[in-house]
């Protein structure tokens, strides 16, 4: 037995995050830890990795009880946590990052670096995670997210990790990067390293894990052996009930008129080939493509974040001039951005503050904010979207990912969107909230909103979209109608193949 945690309790002010949770892991086993946001997965991982100290229960590693007071202590003992937000110094090279804080030196008072020893050892580590050794001298900031993740894993291996804990490792990875990660996990497994794996993507869990532990409200909700890991079983344990329709499609208005027409558009930082695209009323246009295919960039050009250099955009047949986001917002072309913590929300401020921010022009009288009208709007949005928050003053950064995303949606609902651009709308959102968001998207489409959804989650793309366009290296590689829509067809187009 590599790791065994029994009866772990962790109390935060006002919340019992973990209430007697137990789990165990053998050498060379991949254990999925599943649960909705707030179920206690991340807390459990952090307790095991020494970020938090448990209020009760015991953790044993290799049969010996351990109590790590810091993440560093856990790392030295062979337990490494790979965070959702990667902890790499972007300005330093891969090699510097691999050995950060434990550089090899040639000794002496100056602690001169032993660069050749580090280069040799670093190259071995990169080979183990399948990265080219030439990357050692590359600044980490130049690597795509998937490769950064691999660098983090290599760093953990350098500390002779026995147990790797990965918190949503694939949330920002493309499909090929994810596949590469699975290969690395398989190799680690073969080498006897234990892996604990948190993910929201059920398909991944069924694919790479040996066993799944399901948490619900800070308690063990059940455990599934490899053979029993199915989508339905997991969801049942996670939410404690059966979910009827994961992807509701009851409100679609059918084939509407084009609301947003993009003609021969070129933009700063975009491809040389102009892009043309229609988004129609009452449909969800899914947009697929690998990370870096230029999907986010195109949406940024429409929303006024990037400068448009040529072509035209029409909204309901009338030319739309957007030089800054304020213009797009005024016209009803609204964006739910990919990075909600950076672009979507003012995390330190309350739920109400965030809901009001783009809507102050609607609750203003004589130049001042009508606070009664404002409060009514907050209450209305919070109820409508079922945002789980104690009150409208709660700092939005303290909410779970799903509830944060509902607030980002809520900002725009009051404005009555004409075109709603969703960039990875359910990233880092738990299953329950995902369904609520899909229902919302369905309702919006039913009201005649033209929804343009950029997503890397194939399951979501296939489930929600009425029509799909695939981007490859900045241009539209092809369009798929609902009847032609399969995972294979999407991936073929996304990787540059033909439909």
């Amino acid at each position, binding site marked *: 037995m590599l790791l065994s945690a029994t009866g772990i309790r962790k109390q935060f002010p006002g919340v019992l995050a973990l209430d007697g949770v137990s789990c165990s892991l053998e050498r060379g086993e991949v254990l999925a830890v599943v649960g909705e946001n707030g179920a206690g997965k991340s807390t459990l991982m952090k307790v095991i990795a020494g970020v938090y100290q448990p209020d009760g229960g015991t953790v044993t590693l290799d049969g010996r009880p351990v109590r790590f007071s810091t993440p560093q202590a856990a790392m030295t003992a062979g337990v490494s946590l790979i965070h959702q937000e990667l902890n790499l110094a972007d300005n330093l090279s891969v090699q510097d990052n691999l050995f950060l804080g434990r550089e090899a030196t040639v000794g002496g008072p100056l602690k001169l670096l032993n660069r050749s020893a580090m280069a040799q050892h670093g190259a071995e580590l990169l080979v183990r995670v399948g990265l080219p050794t030439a990357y050692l001298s590359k600044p980490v900031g130049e690597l795509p997210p998937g490769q950064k993740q691999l660098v983090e894993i290599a760093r953990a291996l350098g500390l002779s990790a026995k147990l790797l804990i990965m918190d949503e490792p694939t949330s920002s990875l493309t499909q090929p990067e994810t596949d590469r990660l699975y290969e690395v996990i398989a190799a680690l497994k073969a080498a006897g390293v234990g892996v604990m794996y948190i993910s929201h993507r059920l398909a991944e869990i069924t694919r790479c894990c040996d066993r799944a532990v399901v948490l619900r409200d800070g308690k063990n909700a059940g455990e599934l052996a490899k053979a029993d890991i199915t989508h339905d079983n997991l969801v049942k344990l996670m939410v404690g009930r059966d979910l009827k329709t994961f992807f509701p499609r009851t409100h679609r208005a059918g084939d509407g008129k084009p609301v947003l027409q993009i003609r021969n558009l070129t933009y700063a930082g975009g491809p040389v080939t102009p892009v043309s695209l229609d988004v129609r009323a009452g449909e969800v246009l899914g947009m697929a493509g690998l990370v870096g295919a230029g999907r986010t960039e195109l949406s940024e050009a429409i929303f006024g974040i990037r400068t448009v250099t040529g072509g035209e955009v029409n909204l309901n047949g009338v030319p739309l001039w957007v030089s800054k986001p304020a213009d797009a917002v005024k016209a009803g072309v609204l964006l739910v951005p990919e990075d909600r913590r950076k*672009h979507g929300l003012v995390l330190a401020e309350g739920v109400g503050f965030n809901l009001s921010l783009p809507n*102050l022009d609607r609750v203003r009288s004589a130049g001042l904010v009508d606070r009664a009208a404002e409060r009514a709007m907050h209450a209305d949005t919070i109820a409508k979207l079922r945002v789980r928050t104690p009150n409208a003053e709660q700092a939005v950064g303290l909410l779970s990912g799903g509830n944060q995303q509902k607030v980002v949606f809520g*900002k725009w609902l009051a404005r009555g969107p004409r075109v709603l651009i969703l960039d990875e709308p359910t990233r880092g959102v738990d299953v329950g909230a995902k369904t609520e968001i899909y229902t919302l998207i369905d309702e919006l489409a039913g009201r005649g909103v033209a929804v343009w959804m950029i997503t890397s989650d194939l399951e979501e793309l296939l489930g929600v979209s009425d029509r799909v366009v695939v981007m490859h290296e900045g241009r539209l590689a092809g369009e798929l109608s609902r009847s032609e829509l399969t995972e294979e067809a999407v991936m073929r187009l996304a990787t540059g193949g033909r439909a």
Partner: protein
Amino acid sequence: MNEKSKFAACLAAGVAVVGGAWFAAALPFDGPYPAWFILTAVALATLAHTFEVSRRNLQRTAGVVLLLVGLLIVLGRSSDAAFARSSVLSILNRHGELGLVTLGAGLLILTGGIDLSVGSLVALAAVSFGLLAEQGVPPAAAAVLVVLGGVILGIGHGLLVTQLGLQAFLVTLCGMFMYRGVARSIQPGQIGRGSVKNELEQTVGEGAGQAFESQFLDLRYWLTGQNTEERLVFPALLVVFLLLAAVAAVFLHRSSFGRYWYAIGNNEQAARYAGVTVWKHKVSVFAICSGLAALAGVVRFLGAGSVTPSVEGDSYELYAITAAVLGGVSLRGGEGTAVGLVFGALVLPVVKPVMNFTKCPSEWEPWLIGLILLGGAIVDETIRRRGKRAG
């Protein structure tokens, strides 16, 4: 309680506070009481009314209030003369003077900016005011022109920061050198009421000098509260500051501008993605900050009677930042209240008389100020951490 009855309650409290202070300072002041009395009470009521009583705001102002209470106790015990009328009046007026620059610096820091040119701009504004008067511009008009000039310089700062993408620290650091340099170039030595009057008498005529003198004294009376015998009869400067602070409070806590400023200070990108035209707001706040610094320069000239460009307003930008931080504005941006700024600006004006009355050598002043700021920052951080743990 609805908004109207809350404001009425605040107004009653404001009247009580101002009336009580007036009474305690031994009736009567010589001055235009009714007008100032009402304005001060309204300003205080507005400040109180717009102050959101939340845990976060209370935590951010608790430290500075405790510090002030402590300092006032020390001051009261140090000497009987400490709370004499003249001493109190001069503290209050200094509060108003520092308050002007604190208000501007505070709003700017709140939106994520910084202004290091405040002190030099005070000097340039004071000198420009004198030189304009020397050219025969009536003092009131000269004051307006100087404030407008400050606003224009502030817009310049804002445009350099938002359009060219320069850092506010750098732009205003350059301003700090340039404005002081320009002030010393256009007026190498001291300039004052006497020299302006003499110049006017020589270049224009006896009448012009007399007219300047009387207009100057009028303006000085209304803006600083000094009567014709150079005696401070009521704290006009404080009233001016409180009125401006009340306007700032309404902007910050009740208008959409304030919301945008907090959002910009916290997360400029999120504000932009929400459809806020960020650059316009940033430029406006730079303009407000420099305009208030210019106004402070004018009242320095009025109050002191003469200014020396090489030392006038020295370190004011740092005093303003100190006061703003003590008042609960976070240098990280997005945090702070108008009431906090009013309290923060009172600390340094109280420290000075405390030192005088306790016979501390004046050489101690810099390190004492540093220590108080450090102490305030530590207390503030401790309170906030405890608050975080509890909630």
